[in-house]
């Protein structure tokens, strides 16, 4: 997720993925499923497996996580969005919670879905929220009032094999016009955010592995979506086919679509660092893509979208669930299994 930063400069030309290096890491016992950063605020905001929402200020002398106050969530916190100066969190407990960023106080609690909320994002103008959940709906919210504006349906509630499906991923185009959601079996629906009409569907069935013989259940799913800066291409992230579905031992997989035409432009698979592609961010030039995710361990991987070349990759000790990137691309904050870390693309000499 790229965060608006009122005081940020445009990203510098010549961003080089090979400059990626870690600045700091903060270890913990919990699992961080999502991360966000508010404009003009150095704090990293994370959602945790301990049901809490925390802030960590990397600029402090001894950075420590501070818990947002209130009754909070009752299950894993899996989505964070910044909109209208507020922090909104979504959780497996089916609730959205609005928090005051200044005071850390809980402002509003709203039951939003009938099943787990998997992801929450804000529209580029911060006026709307989009949430996806395992009730297989994508819901549209007024970010300020919490009013429900639409419930978008475009995903089957059951897999082809009769089991409950899951709706993991949601993305909105940079101009705010198009909204996409991706599910467990590799189906993507795209809606017009003005009319709420479904305008396209895409299929990425390789993301879903059903084992009909040995283990008789499934694994995988589309875990991340990202529109290109121009909004014409859609990156679909997940995992490729898995032989032994006991583990996440499948290739990290990305498919690039020219979504209006339904044309698949690229199929990228990484067998070196395997697992789920949990989040993707296009670099400002619209030619390169950052992916984060993992299996037991994690990765940050840059691809050249045009050629499909893997440009640069860094491994991490634990699975990464989310990334928050400042608009100036000076810092990338990642959250994952028992860790928050801050990375930079700034060349060492410039930093000095």
């Amino acid at each position, binding site marked *: 997720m790229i965060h608006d930063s009122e005081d940020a400069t445009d990203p510098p030309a010549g961003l080089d993925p090979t400059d990626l290096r870690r600045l700091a890491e903060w270890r913990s016992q919990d699992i961080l499923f999502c991360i966000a950063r508010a404009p003009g605020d150095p704090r990293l905001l994370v959602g945790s497996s301990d049901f809490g929402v925390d802030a960590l200020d990397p600029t402090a002398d001894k950075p420590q996580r501070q818990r947002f106050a209130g009754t909070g969530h*009752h299950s894993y916190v899996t989505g964070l969005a910044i909109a209208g100066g507020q922090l909104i969190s979504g959780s497996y407990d089916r609730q959205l919670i609005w928090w005051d960023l200044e005071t850390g106080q809980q402002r509003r609690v709203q039951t939003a879905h009938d099943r787990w909320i998997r992801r929450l994002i804000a529209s580029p103008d911060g006026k709307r929220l989009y949430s996806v959940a395992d009730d297989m709906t994508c819901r549209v919210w007024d970010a300020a009032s919490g009013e429900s504006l639409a419930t978008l349906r475009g995903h089957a509630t059951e897999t082809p094999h009769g089991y409950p499906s899951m709706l993991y991923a949601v993305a909105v185009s940079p101009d705010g016009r198009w909204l996409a959601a991706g599910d467990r079996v590799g189906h993507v629906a795209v809606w017009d955010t003005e009319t709420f009409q479904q305008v396209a569907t895409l299929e990425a069935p390789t993301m879903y592995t059903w084992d009909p013989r040995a283990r008789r259940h499934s694994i995988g799913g589309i875990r991340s979506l990202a529109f290109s800066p121009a909004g014409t291409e859609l990156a679909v992230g997940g995992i490729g086919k898995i032989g032994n579905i006991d583990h996440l031992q499948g290739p990290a997989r990305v498919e690039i679509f020219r979504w209006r035409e339904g044309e698949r432009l690229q199929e990228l698979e990484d067998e070196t660092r395997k697992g789920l592609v949990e989040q993707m961010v296009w670099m400002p030039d619209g030619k390169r893509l950052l992916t984060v995710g993992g299996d037991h361990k994690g990765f940050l991987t840059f691809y050249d979208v045009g050629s499909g070349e893997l440009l640069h990759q860094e491994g991490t000790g634990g699975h990464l669930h989310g990334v928050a990137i400042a608009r100036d691309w000076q810092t990338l904050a990642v959250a994952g299994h028992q860790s928050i870390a801050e990375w930079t693309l700034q060349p060492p000499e410039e930093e000095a």
Partner: protein
Amino acid sequence: MHRQRTDLGSPPATVSRRQLLGAAAVGSTVAAADMNRLSLFSQSGLAGEIARGDKSVILLWLAGGASQLETWDPKPGRSTGGPFAKIQTSVPGIEISELLPKMSQRLNETAIIRSLNTKIADHGGGYALMDTGRRSEPGVEFPHLGAIIAHELAQRESQVPDHIEMYTSTEGRRKGAAGFLGARYNPMFLTDSMMPDNIQRLEAISDADHADRASLQQFLSQRFSRDVPHPAVDSHNAAYGRVRGLMASDYLFDVDREPQSMRDHYGPTQFGQQCLVARRLVEAGVPFVKVARAWWDSHGQNFETHRELCADLDHVMAALLDDLKQRGLLDKTLVVTMGEFGRTPKINGSLGRDHFASAWSCTLSGCGIRGGSVYGKTDEDGQTVIEGETGAGDLFATIFAALGIDHTKEYMLGSRPIPIADFDSFPIREILA
């Protein structure tokens, strides 16, 4: 402790209980029986044996190891608890995972054991332990649960198979064995289809021809027996009758004979249809049916896996209990859920749980069980058993006790007594009716 003995003679497992009971029924041949057989009759109580004959077990084998935290022993709010909530059941004070909403409303028929500590956390070793009730021992082939139940509960005159296992997935597929009880109690093992292979009558032989052949075989064998009484003839007759019975049992495996509404009741999954077959089998008098539902070995994506598999388990188990109850079979049928072990409280980097045998759960429903009960307790993180530690032998003793089988009974393997429940195992009286 007094233990009741069933002598198996020497070599082991060469004399079957059915043959012994057959010898008793013939009367005049009792005199020809050896002392081992006589000791069986004097100590076990033939009337009691026959009285138990209408009881059955359906074992729902959760192959690969289901998570106790996502099923019967949830710990929401703890770092080990995972994302699922717990829900109130139909029994005040008992809560289970929200992944089992249908079973939560049927807990009156079910006892939960939350304190299994079976220590062996590899698939092969865990399977051997949980399917025999004791640790493996070099040189001794212990019978598996199904074989013991078949040995103890099968009716002599039954025309249906008495030990059936269904395991259609390939991962972790292991066939139960009768061990020293003898091949007679090995399972009919169904892997590729729900219909047994090679039991259909050859098309070239009409049913009338087949019946005629059986009559001729019976006539000849009876005439032979009059002239030359010998247990081998009884055995041959029993085997022939058993084959006839198996061939005539093919309809039991055909779910198309059930109304569509009943098939819908069990749902579309293979596990559901297999459990419907299991009900048909126990209704016809089969004493032991194992239905394996693989594969729960969720080292990665434990919560997604359990969301899928628990939906299947919840629906099918609830459907099975309802169906058995409605038919008046639940009082005579013990439904057991277990696997080779549970799963680690610790959640790994792939959001998975690994093998864990130190504090896990199983359930017993129906026959002989005090429904709505929970036995044992784990600590707040589910890491250790803090009350009512239960081993595999205790679970077996409880299963036997629920079925009215004396858990202190012993088989004699040569001169060595082998209790049907492992030494120092005791039934959990708190969950018995």
